[in-house]
């Protein structure tokens, strides 16, 4: 029994990295996702096409491949061209990839949130003489933001699980911690079960929290 407890404790050591990367990725994802959503609904065709291409590429390729390109491919390319470049820490490309990946999904969520804002709100704002950017900044985006907050929470939960692929690029998060322990002790089952339990300990309360938030917001009618 003790060995299982040890497996859990080992996996817990990777938790700060998993949480940290996931949290940063949600923030990057929300910011870039907002940009993409605005580009996509832009009246300038070029801008909306750029956003569409970005989203298609990110969604059409596995995150592990993106992570390998970012962590190893790009430094290699730069070095080949005589630029000495090395990531100071692998956690940086990890956060960038997860964030940019998440942005492609969040863009759709945010776009949906913007569309869910009652058109009457926009009309009222326009009738008071607000410019397009004022209508967006003061009225539409704050309301869309409230609508998509639960989705941000769900994306955070998803990222906690998805960041497991970062173990392949050498970021010592939960799964990588378990793998390393397994490599030195050969306690294969306790190692991976430990990781699974720790993931569940994170995701279960978080999803419950998000569900409760959703319920409360529905009750408040916003």
């Amino acid at each position: 029994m003790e060995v299982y407890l040890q497996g859990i404790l080992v996996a817990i050591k990777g938790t700060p990295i998993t949480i940290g990367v996931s949290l940063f990725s949600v923030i990057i994802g929300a910011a870039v996702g907002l940009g993409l959503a605005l580009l996509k609904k832009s009246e300038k065709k070029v801008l909306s096409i750029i956003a569409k291409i970005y989203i298609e590429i990110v969604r059409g390729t596995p995150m592990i491949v993106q992570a390998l390109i970012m962590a190893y491919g790009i430094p290699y390319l730069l070095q080949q061209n005589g630029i000495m470049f090395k990531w100071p820490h692998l956690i940086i490309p990890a956060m960038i990839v997860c964030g940019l990946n998440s942005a492609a999904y969040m863009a759709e969520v945010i776009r949906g949130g913007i569309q869910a804002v009652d058109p009457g709100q926009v009309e009222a704002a326009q009738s008071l003489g607000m410019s397009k950017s004022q209508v967006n900044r003061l009225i539409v985006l704050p309301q869309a933001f409230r609508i998509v907050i639960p989705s941000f929470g769900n994306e955070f939960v998803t990222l906690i699980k998805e960041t497991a692929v970062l173990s392949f690029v050498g970021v010592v998060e939960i799964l990588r911690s378990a793998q390393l322990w397994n490599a030195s002790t050969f306690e294969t089952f306790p190692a991976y079960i430990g990781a699974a339990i720790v993931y569940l300990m994170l995701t279960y309360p978080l999803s419950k929290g998000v569900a409760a938030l959703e319920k409360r917001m529905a009750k408040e009618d916003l």
Partner: protein
Amino acid sequence: MIKATNIHKHFNDLHAVKGVDITVNDGEVLCIIGPSGSGKSTLLRCLNMLETPDSGTIEIDGVQLTENNLREMRTKMAMVFQNFNLFSHLSVLENITVAPVNVKGVEKVQADKKAMELLKLVGLEDKANAYPRNLSGGQKQRVAIARALAMDPDILLFDEPTSALDPEMVGEVLDVMKKLAEEGMTMLVVTHEMGFAREVADDIIFMADGEIVERGTAEQIFEHPSHERTQSFLKKVL
């Protein structure tokens, strides 16, 4: 004074407004009545370009409304909507101050002070920090009127302001509108409230099928309607 000339508006095959001319003089209360689908709301929405008219001109005090001065002109004709359209993420006070502060550049302190005065006018000074979701329909509409007044508009446009209200709340909104009329506010009101139109309007326009059928004083329209369509409409609603 607001003056619209030869306003046309199509929705696909539907010719909703057919070359309407309308003038509202300063201090005048003009009510537009007519059956559903007669184009009266569309006409009102064309005046501040929430619907872009297919043709026609709109002038305020002799200045023609164009693409370039649209925002400035809109601040001169504040609108009150059927469904209130209060900003749901803002408090009552913020609903009233957001446009003066951001559009007209009024100091926040000044805007707050003015907002409190307006809330007092509509009888809701105790609701300044409430959110729209906590207000009744009648209260929402009174806040919406205060929000419109906060822009110091030359004219208030009302788009069926009591149509979405429970019957017991209609009175409180009409009372505020009567008070404004007495104070000399220029108002253009699309309404189904015949009693209000009769009592408050300086002039009444009867619209049907996208056209103005006739315009006259309350007495002319209600007692001696000259047009047969007006007569049959009034027979149905009175």
